[in-house]
């Protein structure tokens, strides 16, 4: 590295920022820093702490692409529709009648709400949630779906055994979920299929025999049978039996619950989620989590981790390199041999070992990385620069007025080295970001904090086929990492151009 005319840190900064790549780097880093500042305000840390809590994300559709991806398919994709419980705006209409016949109390509760469905594709799932409150006897709960063509299909019939004491509050344990999309054989919602079969046969759409071929056995899902939500929301003709040909019936649907209770205290409340096939800006993962949150929070985490690691290692390495070059002799030999030694140690395997054995937190990972980077390439570069600076006249001048060696090192030599140090910091940040990403990818990162590497690791862990269908899960975290590291690489390059004038002009 050639030493040009003395250039201060500030001057180097200003000049680097004026080059084209420096300008691009400044813009990219400015965007990232803005993001890092705004994200904690926009998405509070509390949300991120819920990242590994599956209950938090149950209202999001599972593994769906971002909303804007419908541009590629050309079809209007449905958004998630949530019908909140009665008592909230837009919630179910709640009618409750209690009466007495021959000394026996009866209560009838009707919950009804409609939603408009205008998309070109079927919803990905439908779930109905119900809370009931009753006396000694379980009420009878029934549910219907009314279609825009006037057809009414009964969904299921159940006698709940869970009791809720207060209807206005949904306590998670008291909620029964009727999943119309993934009903299990023991679940009352499995009746949906039987009811749909009845309905279709009575409308001459299918025959019992054909239906038997679609559903080979009660538990047999191996022949890709039509999903309940497809049958329920398709135009009523024979094409609806094949998910590839089924046409969406657009218009106003309504969901109705009826509770027939056998005491005067019976009451019920309900909630419905018609899951869309697209979500948000980035989409969701297999645990229904909004990837946008992790993607946004990845920026401050990556920036902080990369900067802290790079600052610590490069500054330590610079100091050691300067000491090595300035004092020479045994100190020099010791530092240089240690640097050679560190070069040969297989750092990543050892780091992975540590990760497996101790499950370190993000801070501890950072600390270990710094320990493994106290000497290295920067030490060698700094030493060679110091060896050149040492011979210059202003050092001679400082010596002649009696400055101590430590004073010369800190007041005269280190300031000359600093611009190079900052170039090296900018070039080291990507290495740290990728080290963290590598560990997270292998599942050895901090499980409480979503990082870009962790998203990639999750996607990879869900199966190699994930890269095909679920591109948004892979592409955006990878793009985030690349964007950040490229910004730092460009900054380092801009510095390099300023500090090595030969690269600038001939």
């Amino acid at each position, binding site marked *: 590295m050639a030493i040009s005319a003395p250039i201060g840190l500030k001057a180097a900064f200003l000049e680097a920022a004026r080059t084209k790549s420096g300008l691009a780097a400044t813009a990219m880093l400015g965007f990232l820093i803005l993001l890092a500042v705004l994200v904690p305000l926009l998405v509070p840390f509390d949300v991120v702490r819920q990242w590994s809590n599956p209950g938090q994300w149950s209202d999001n559709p599972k593994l769906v692409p971002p909303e804007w991806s419908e541009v590629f398919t050309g079809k209007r994709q449905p958004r998630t529709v949530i019908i909140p419980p009665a008592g909230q705006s837009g919630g179910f209409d709640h009618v409750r009648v209690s009466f007495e016949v021959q000394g026996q109390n009866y209560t009838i509760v009707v919950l009804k709400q409609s939603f408009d469905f205008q998309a070109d594709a079927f919803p990905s799932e439908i779930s109905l949630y119900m809370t009931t409150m009753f006396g000694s006897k379980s009420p009878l709960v029934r549910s219907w779906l009314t279609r825009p063509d006037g057809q009414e299909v009964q969904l299921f019939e159940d006698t709940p055994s869970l009791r809720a004491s207060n209807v206005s509050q949904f306590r998670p344990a008291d909620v029964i979920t009727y999943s119309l999309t993934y009903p299990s054989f023991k679940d009352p919602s499995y009746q949906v299929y039987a009811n749909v079969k009845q309905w279709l046969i009575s409308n001459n759409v299918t025959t019992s025999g054909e239906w038997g071929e679609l559903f080979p056995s009660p538990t047999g899902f191996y022949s890709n049978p039509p999903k309940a939500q497809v049958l329920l929301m398709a135009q009523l003709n024979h094409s609806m039996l094949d998910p590839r040909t089924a046409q969406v019936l657009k218009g106003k649907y309504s969901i109705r619950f009826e509770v027939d209770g056998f005491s005067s205290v019976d009451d019920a409340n309900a909630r419905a989620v018609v899951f869309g096939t697209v979500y948000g800006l980035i989409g969701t993962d297999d645990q229904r989590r909004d990837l946008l949150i992790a993607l946004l929070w990845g920026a401050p985490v990556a920036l902080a981790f990369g900067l802290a690691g790079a600052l610590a290692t490069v500054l330590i390495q610079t100091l050691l390199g300067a000491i090595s070059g300035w004092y020479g002799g045994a100190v020099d030999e010791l530092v240089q041999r240690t640097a050679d030694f560190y070069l040969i140690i297989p750092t990543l395997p050892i780091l992975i070992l540590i990760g497996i054995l101790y499950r370190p937190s993000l801070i501890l990972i950072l600390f270990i990385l710094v320990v493994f980077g106290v000497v290295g390439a920067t030490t060698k570069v700094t030493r060679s620069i110091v060896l050149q600076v040492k011979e210059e006249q202003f050092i001679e001048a400082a010596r002649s007025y009696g400055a101590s060696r430590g004073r010369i090192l800190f007041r005269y030599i280190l300031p000359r080295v600093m611009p190079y140090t900052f170039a090296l910091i900018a070039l080291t940040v990507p290495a740290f970001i990728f080290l963290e990403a590598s560990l997270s990818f292998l599942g050895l990162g901090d499980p409480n904090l979503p990082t870009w590497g962790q998203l990639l690791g999750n996607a990879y862990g869900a199966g190699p086929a994930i890269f095909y269908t679920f591109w948004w899960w892979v592409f955006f975290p990878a793009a985030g990492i690349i964007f950040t590291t490229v910004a730092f690489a*460009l900054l380092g390059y801009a510095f390099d151009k300023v500090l090595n004038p030969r690269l600038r002009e001939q």
Partner: protein
Amino acid sequence: MTGGCFSSIMGVVWHLAKRAIFLVITFILAIYATVVIANGGGRVDQILKDQIYTDLKQQYARNPAFQRLPPQEQARQFNISYNSIIEAQGLNEPFFQKSFRYTFNALQLNLGRATQLHSSDLSMRVSDIIFERLPRSLVLFTVANVVAAVFGIWLGLWMARKALSAFDRGMTVLSVTTFVVPPWVYGILFILIFAYVFKVFPAGGLTSVPPLPPSPLILAFPPLIAAGLLGAGYVVYARLRSKYRLVGFGILGAGAALLLVWGLVLPADYFKDMEWHMILPAAAVAFSVFGSWSYTTRNLVLQVMDEDFVFAARAKGLKERDVLSRYVLRAASPPIVTSLALTLAAAWTGAIITETVFQYPGLGLLFYEAISLFDAPVVIGLTTVYALLLVVTVFLLDVTYSLLDPRIKALRR
């Protein structure tokens, strides 16, 4: 003259011997550090002991004869077997003593037995497992790095010739930005693009499943011969006088024809299938490495271009291309070689995630499998082999450096 030559050779040998001794010491220390960390201060030993304990418990629980014995006798027998196994595996020694034994064994490549993993012929010996996989990693990463180096140096020379043009600026930014990103990130993107969107390459693995029957090994070589022919054809075309250009075209055409014949006519077999599966990982590695070659080459060449001897060469009326290749590149090569020690060294250990992403069954994927199964002997063995590979790489670079740089001979005399 002969004396000077002799002493300069002695100087090089002395220098290399010193480096070798230093590297061996470093290697031993690195292995010792690995042994200490891999055992986690006795943690892995405890895991192993627990495993032996549960295995033995289950074994005895299934034994009806053992169940009929009185409890004291049961306990006595259990302890005897347990202690003998512990002793046989050397788990009862204090860690300090054991660590030296482990290090000494590792240095002899006497790596012991795996606890879970095995090679494809079901050998549980760690060295068998590792040496089954080592050639695959060596081939993949050597090919990728060589391709990247050749392409990078060529690109760097071209950039230096057109210094400060739009091409140079664009390529510099491309080089600078691509080499900070490790191969596994490109791997993920390449799989996404080439394996799933365009479906031109397999997404991963060593071969198709089930593997195709192997044909003679010789059929695996046409691509290499074709690459050689293409390179030679280009050189003949570009370097020689115009009347030989036809020869150059001929060689180029022969190379292309061989490639076509290999690709389309020759039947698919095991090796061809393997090469087909290696293209995407090799491309990912090469794409993340070539930038450092081209950027370093460009900068060093530009620095050397200002030297007096280059002016002299130009003044002699040599063609610019010859000045570049004979004078500039020769003088710039030692620093290029050194600055890439790091790249190569990083490539070895970086293989862990790259191979995992591609499910390529080399050393890297073995490491991943071993750590997920807590197979400590395999992990220690692999780290040993990695350290060995690093040491050998660094030493080879030292040798290359001292052969290339005349100043070393002068300095070390």
